[in-house]
């Protein structure tokens, strides 16, 4: 018994699910459900279909999978024990890393949103406050300041040294 991966969407196929298609050149295509099977029959490229793992990895949305080794090993009970223990840990690490990856992707959004909000505030303030009112109330509205981490100031000596 092996858990296979769907050729189209790369999800796990548990026993008792899905369809396997064997082509005349003896290549086996496994599908997890009829959705993937039908997409395959329509000759769609999974790398272009948005919801598949293939697309997501290709476009950097998800973490890429590491290659698996295919060397058969002689059975050793101790190795088996260790493997079983390790699987859990590896699973957790993988999970965390994938979450990290996605979080990284989302980071720039926050900054972007803030910038856009600021601009909006500047431009569309006239919808809620008339310019006369603003002029009279100027000190009340403050556009928030932007702080940028400045590079270290070159000392005079450094500058001289450069020259």
């Amino acid at each position, binding site marked *: 018994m092996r858990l296979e991966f769907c050729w189209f969407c790369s999800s796990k196929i548990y026993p008792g699910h899905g369809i396997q298609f064997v082509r005349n050149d003896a290549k086996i295509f496994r599908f997890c459900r009829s959705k993937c099977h039908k997409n395959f029959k329509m000759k769609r490229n999974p790398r272009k279909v948005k919801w598949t793992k293939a697309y997501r990895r290709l476009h950097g949305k998800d973490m890429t999978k590491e290659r698996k080794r295919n060397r058969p090993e002689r059975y*050793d009970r101790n190795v088996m024990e260790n493997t079983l223990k390790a699987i859990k840990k590896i699973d957790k690490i993988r999970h965390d890393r994938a979450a990290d990856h996605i979080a990284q992707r989302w980071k720039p959004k926050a900054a972007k949103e803030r910038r856009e909000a600021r601009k909006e505030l500047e431009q569309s303030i006239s919808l809620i406050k008339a310019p006369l009112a603003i002029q009279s109330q100027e000190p009340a509205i403050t556009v928030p300041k932007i702080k940028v981490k400045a590079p270290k100031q070159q000392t005079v000596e450094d500058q001289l040294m450069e020259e």
Partner: protein
Amino acid sequence: MAQYDFKKITVVPTGNDLIDIVLSRTQRQTPTVIHKGNAISRVRQFYMRKVKFTETNFTDKLSKTIEDFPRVEDIHPFYGDLLHVLYNKDHYKLALGQLNTARNLIKRIREDYVKLLKYGDSLYRCKSLKRAALGRMCTVTKRIGPSLAYLEHVRQHMARLPSINTGAPTILICGCPNVGKSSFLNKITRADVEVQPYAFTTKSLFVGHTDYKYLRYQVIDTPGLLDRPLEDRNIIEMCSVTALVNLHAAILFFLDLSGSCGYSISQQAALFHSIKMMFRNNPVLIVCNKTDLQTLEGLSGEDLKLVMEMKSAALDVLLTMSTITDEGVMAVKNAACQRLLDQRSERKMKSKKMPTVLNRFHVAMPKPRDQKERPVCIPQAVLEARAEEAAHEERKTEKDIENENGGAGVYSASLRKHYILADDDWKLDILPEFLDGHNVYDFIDPDILQRVEELEREESAVEEDGGDFEIEDEDFTAEAEKDLQEIRKRKKLLIQKHRIKKSTAESRPTVPRKFDKDRKFTTERMGRQLSSLGIDPSRAIERARSRSVSRKGRKRERSVGGDGEDEMEIDGGLDNKKKLRLRSRSIEGFKDSAQKMKAVTMARNATKKRNKDARRGEADRVIPTLRPKHLFSGKRSIGKTDRR
């Protein structure tokens, strides 16, 4: 001298069947279409063909039958007599004769009608002639129906006659009923004849074959004979008599010493003497059967004398046997075969061909050189190998283990016991296949713990590092937040309103603002909006009110009344002409301004209601019912209904 095969006779159809066969053939194999418009010669030809064809078929079939059946005179007398006995020669001949007559009659009919057809003058006449001809032929055939049935019966029986080769060496078994003839046949040949305690179990001739000295002998079993004059004999006995008389064979006359067949020895002896005549030149052997019940020695004096008499008549050949105990059976057979063989070779010797044959070959025996003995010689190695083979132990195979433990379905071989592992305890381990949705096999690695440690170290390192350096912004103040929310809300509302306006633009008439149906455009509203923007509205409201039409009045009025100070002032002084023109233009069609006022008021009142209602009309591009029933239900008289 030949082997007769009566199975090759073709099936004889019954009268009606024959008619059907021939007529249907005629219908199928001759052309069927003719019109009375065709030339008369064609018509004649058409019908003549049919008559000829029918006659040919009848003749063929009858001739075949006549030729297939054997002529009693022409075949071996044994078969001739047999046929006579079974079927009555006369009846047989008569039947065949009738067939012959019928054949000739049909021929005659055909000749006559063909002659008549030559002069047929119309289609109808020709057709009638053909019908008559065919009808007569069929009548003839119907008349010979019973003969055909009899011949078919004969044929079926003949096909089942035993095929006796009249030229081969034969042994004939005869005697009283129930003496043990059929059992003897069963013993020496592969025939499986019925053996029963009642008389006349065997009702016809049976043939078996046996071998002796590389020669094949026929053994014929006959039905039992009773001591009667020839005229009184029934068909079954006649069969055996025929065989006795006509076949050249060694005759085994069976005697039952015990009398358990139901006939005493004297009766049997009487029978023997009565059929003695039929033996002629054939070698005869007296065989005493059932010695297990009564031996020859134990016979009474009278019986013994009778037996001895028979023996002397049979050239002193007497044998004893018992078919049940198999005692002497082979001896009898060998004796009979030998007698026959001797007779045959004697005859051959006496014939003229013999010397020529004898002269042709000569058997040479090599003379021994010396008296030395020369035995068989086998090399030592071969002997040793043979001894080893014999002493070789059988290795226990998996198959043997399987058989021991219950066979293929019960025992399944353990494939694991030959595994080569570091520790033999592990041979029977159950291997897990997957855990938590992962294939265990994909993770097996002797160094897996190491790798896991590395990974964990990496992870912890990354955590310590913390996040990347970000460009930090100050968050908005609470007020700024609030303003932002307001802005967004306002924008949403605008968009919503616009959307409503857009969607209803086509279906609603745009009422100009000045009619103000809902009383939206009031100064209070303006004041509220301005104050929400943070401006003091009082001045704006004042100005708006002062400039309103109701307060100020109409332009035209002012100009008519000449009170239009503003306009007038701006323009400067007006010419008289202008004044005149203005005046006349403004009260065109009316007597005076009062009348005009009234008219204007009336017009305004009339349109007021309509505008206020602002109802939709046909011109407003409205679909009064979006889904009319007549389009969305019911079958169509023409066309498809898969789209609505």
